[in-house]
């Protein structure tokens, strides 16, 4: 969390104060993918972010994920317990209300693996926090019935060089202040 604060302070100090700063907020729901050792898990999560456009189509934002449900494969049950971080948003100019974007940032996330019956007949829970890079790509479509409201789809990857692949696909709604 300290890194998150430092990152935000650094980024904010790097930006020019501008009169036309625009705030935005977003809520998403999706399925994560956690893969290791030929095992695939798809826990579901929610993600909330808030940010500010500091230049045209360049924003900075903070985000927090929360678990909706875990997923089971074989004797294992895996969940992304939490995630939080900061990212820079780089998006294309809108074309008929459609925009592509990339998010690059830092993420801290937690994984929990419950082993319901291990090879010696016991139960075991492993919890670990990871830190790494968040990379997201997505598409946003502005909705016509409400100004500032945007629907989007996104793929994200949390890379922590741990031997465990953590990514996900989500759908979301965002609101940009005009």
């Amino acid at each position: 969390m300290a890194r998150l604060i430092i990152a935000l302070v650094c980024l904010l100090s790097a930006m020019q104060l501008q009169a036309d700063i625009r705030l935005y907020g977003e809520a998403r729901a999706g399925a994560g993918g956690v893969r290791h050792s030929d095992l695939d898990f798809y826990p579901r999560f929610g993600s909330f972010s808030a940010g500010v456009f500091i230049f045209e189509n360049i924003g900075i934002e903070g985000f927090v994920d929360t678990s909706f449900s875990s997923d089971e494969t074989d004797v294992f049950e895996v969940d992304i317990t939490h995630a939080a971080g900061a990212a820079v948003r780089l998006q294309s100019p809108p074309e008929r209300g459609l925009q592509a974007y990339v998010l690059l940032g830092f993420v801290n996330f937690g994984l929990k693996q419950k082993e319901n019956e291990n090879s010696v007949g016991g139960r075991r829970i492993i919890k670990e926090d990871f830190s790494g890079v968040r990379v997201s790509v997505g598409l946003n479509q502005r909705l016509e019935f409400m100004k500032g409201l945007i629907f989007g789809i996104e793929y994200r990857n949390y890379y922590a060089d741990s031997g465990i692949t953590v990514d996900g696909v989500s759908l979301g709604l965002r609101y940009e202040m005009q």
Partner: protein
Amino acid sequence: MMRCNDMKYAYIMVAGVLSLSACSGDGTEFLSAAESNNLRLASLTITQPAGLLSPLYVNAGDRVPLSLSGISRDNEFLELSPSSKNWSIDAAFADFASIDNNGVFTAIADSPEPIVVRVAIGGVDSTFNIFVQTESLASISEIRGPATLERCLPQNYTAVGTFSQGSTRGLPQATWSVANPLMGRVGENFEGSIPVTGVNTLEPLQLVASVDGVTFTQAIVVDDNLQQIVITPESIETTVDGIVSLGATGTYTTGESERSVVITEMVEWQVSFNNGIATVENEDPKGQLTGESAGTTLVSASCGDFREEQSVVVQ
């Protein structure tokens, strides 16, 4: 519209975020739990390298690659890779030794107590004691291996030393020789174990182990129970430049029983007359005969003074 100056700030921001994004977190436990489940692992065993003894004594500065095996829930023996495992040493012994995640133990300093090495795969773990006690070799006390050899059937031997403070250790670094080379030969040292082949039975083979000028000799009787060598194929015919792979089978008797053993790699192959008819390999591929020119000759397979011949026709 964004100005060039704005882009500079954008780059600074991206660099700032990514520079804070050093990876951390250890996924080993997650992966090892899955590995344990896949293997249906019931128990683990840590073993020292071949040629070293248990309890294992090492000197400060020594590095020891440990091995790992297991038993599955189906009672099946599992040879496991020691690499990328969760190896550890109790923190209290951090000044005396270390171990990496490939199971390579490094002795740092003499320890008053045995150092407990631990490895875990999922919920299954095992421990192993290593004594770090720096001593010098006082004598080679023993050569371990069979007391008798059968002609052309190698057996493995290891050397054991007694050290200055009384510990007994394996000596994988020993060099080996046969004092009476007519009686037999030594092969290549493999993980501290040496294969010894007896070829003649006139007198016991004198096997010599040496470490840093300290030597030990052990007499090994070579049994005279090789009754016959059979060369295959029964009829050896080939053409000029043609190749035939020869085989040799020894017939051995023990009491009333008789058994046949393939000894192609142990016998010495020779073309009896150096008349340019054929050649035969004594290195890999051992026993491979090549026709050189048309004619007839003899090929032999011998184990010391025990010899069998067979005719060769090259057309």
